[in-house]
């Protein structure tokens, strides 16, 4: 019923993976620098190319043969019916699928020419380059708001000195559009915030470790419309400095905030999810190439 139309598979020619400067930095997590400018080849803008990626849970094939270009410094939206593997693919990008026993991914996902899926690349290093924001806001309850922002550094045992810490916290909270709301209660627990504020705190926490990419899995689905609007605005703003990939069930949201939309679907329950089509959001929403995409966007799906 659905024709699989992979978008342009640009084969990014990489000078032998780990030999590139970014590859070297990613392979050794301990030497990973947290400098303002991420290491990488000149002109790196955090673009990703996903090539022939399949994801398995044990023997169950959940996502099959996805090839997709994700532009740097832009918002890419993953849309599609429930169970088509959006979350699975998203987690494969920063290798969070490895946390689930039995889960594995095949294929290659390159970030500025470095294959994140390669064996010799440390998943810990990948995750510090590719951050993640979850569906349910999950600030660390045993930490203050301030420490939540610094959490990535604190966990690694790299808590910055007082003044540097204050400066970083202010910058990240400003960036997450949260500073004005919390600047007087930085020492309070992250639990004391509203759901929308907590989610923005989680975004501040994710960008404090200076990733190139921020992945968001339905970041607004647990939030009220006002908070959702705040996060949407924030995502647009983040795309100036980060590559943002967001999973959403909200078509209007995908249309409002994304530059590129990728539509996934599955033939029937139990079948693997596949990429149906992807392209500039305007084109996907106004003139999709595949009928299934139009049906889904117009709410005529299932």
């Amino acid at each position: 019923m659905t024709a699989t139309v992979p978008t342009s598979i640009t084969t990014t020619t990489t000078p032998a993976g780990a030999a590139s400067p970014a590859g070297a930095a990613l392979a050794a997590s301990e030497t990973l620098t947290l400098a303002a400018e991420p290491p990488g080849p000149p002109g790196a803008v955090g673009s990703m190319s996903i090539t022939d990626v399949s994801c398995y849970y044990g023997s169950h094939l959940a996502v099959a043969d996805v090839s997709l270009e994700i532009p740097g410094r832009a918002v890419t939206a993953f849309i599609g019916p429930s169970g088509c593997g959006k979350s699975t693919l998203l987690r494969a990008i920063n290798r969070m699928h490895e946390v689930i026993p039995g889960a594995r991914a095949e294929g290659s996902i390159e970030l500025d020419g470095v294959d994140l899926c390669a064996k010799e690349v440390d998943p810990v290093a990948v995750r510090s380059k590719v951050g993640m924001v979850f569906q349910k806001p999950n600030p660390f309850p045993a930490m203050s708001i301030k420490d939540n922002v610094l959490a990535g550094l604190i966990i690694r045992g790299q808590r910055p000195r007082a003044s540097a810490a204050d400066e970083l916290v202010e910058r990240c909270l400003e960036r997450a559009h949260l500073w004005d709301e919390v600047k007087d209660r930085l020492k309070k627990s992250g639990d004391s915030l509203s759901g929308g504020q907590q989610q923005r705190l989680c975004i501040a926490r994710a960008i404090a470790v200076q990733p190139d990419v921020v992945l968001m899995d339905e970041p607004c689905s647990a939030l009220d419309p006002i908070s959702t609007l705040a996060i949407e605005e924030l995502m647009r703003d983040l795309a100036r400095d980060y590559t943002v990939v967001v999973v959403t069930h909200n078509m209007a949201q995908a249309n409002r905030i994304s530059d590129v939309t990728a539509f996934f679907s599955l033939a029937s329950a139990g079948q693997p999810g596949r990429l149906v089509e992807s392209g500039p959001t305007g084109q996907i929403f106004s003139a999709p190439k595949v009928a299934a995409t139009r049906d889904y966007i117009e709410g005529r799906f299932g």
Partner: protein
Amino acid sequence: MSVAQTLGKQPTAADAADAAVTLSASRPSLARRTKNRIASGAVVCAVALAAIPLALVIWAALTRGIERLDLALFTNSMWGVVGQGGGLLHALVGTLLVTGATALIAIPLGLAAAIYLTEYGGQRKLAGITRRAVDIMVSIPSIVAGLAAYALFSLLLGPGTRSGLAGAVALAMIMIPVVVRSSEEVLRLVPGDLREAGLALGSPRWRVIRKIVLPTALPGLTAGAVLGVARIIGETAPLLLVAGFTDAMNYNLAEGRMATLPVFIYTQWSSKGLDTAAYDQRAWAGALVLMAVVVVLQLAARALPPQIAKLRRNR
């Protein structure tokens, strides 16, 4: 009425009457109400029966021991005392030292095992074996733990060696499974979300455990540890075997017999001198002190967690 309202209708008198009818119809039958009464009566009786011994113990200890609850009790040992006077300072110090050493052995080991079970073990074989071992340890009679420690120290340091440390090792065997179980339970309560969030920030698993999981669980872990201490602080049998008894002060855990509160009570009671009343009184006063320590620990286990959580928050 509320039924009608939730259905979005205007409540009418008829509706109200309907509701009344159905409500009275759903009233429990006489038989059920009688059964209910009998059952709750039985429960109240059972609770009262269980509370009676507790009340009696407190009453007995208070009436017989309160007179000796004087300053001398807390400032003297039994060195050279044969009749009236004397005190339990040596036993109190011994209990604090032995219990402290036990906690120092049992808490790190127990916590390490719990961390292994919750964070790394999963379905692995070693995890299964560890769980089984903990189950067995829970049911080891304390006297057997005492014998094991006695045998161990006899082998290492020569036959008949007695010391506070040997006592602590025996008690640790009893406390470790308690700590493992309570810690495992608490660690499982830490949401998986937080672990994922920590990992997604780009940090190795053990660092996420140290910086996120343990601090989040700290209040519960503390409570579990304090309850573990309360569990072993009244143990007598293993200490009789391996820590022995003395009338004198001993601050050295590694060497020589060391008196402890439960053993003090036991010896005051079992080997009375001529002035039996003096020995009885000291035994009951010792019992009062021991009960007070346990109650304080129990209260601390309840009061500490929120306090710690608050401290961490305001830091």
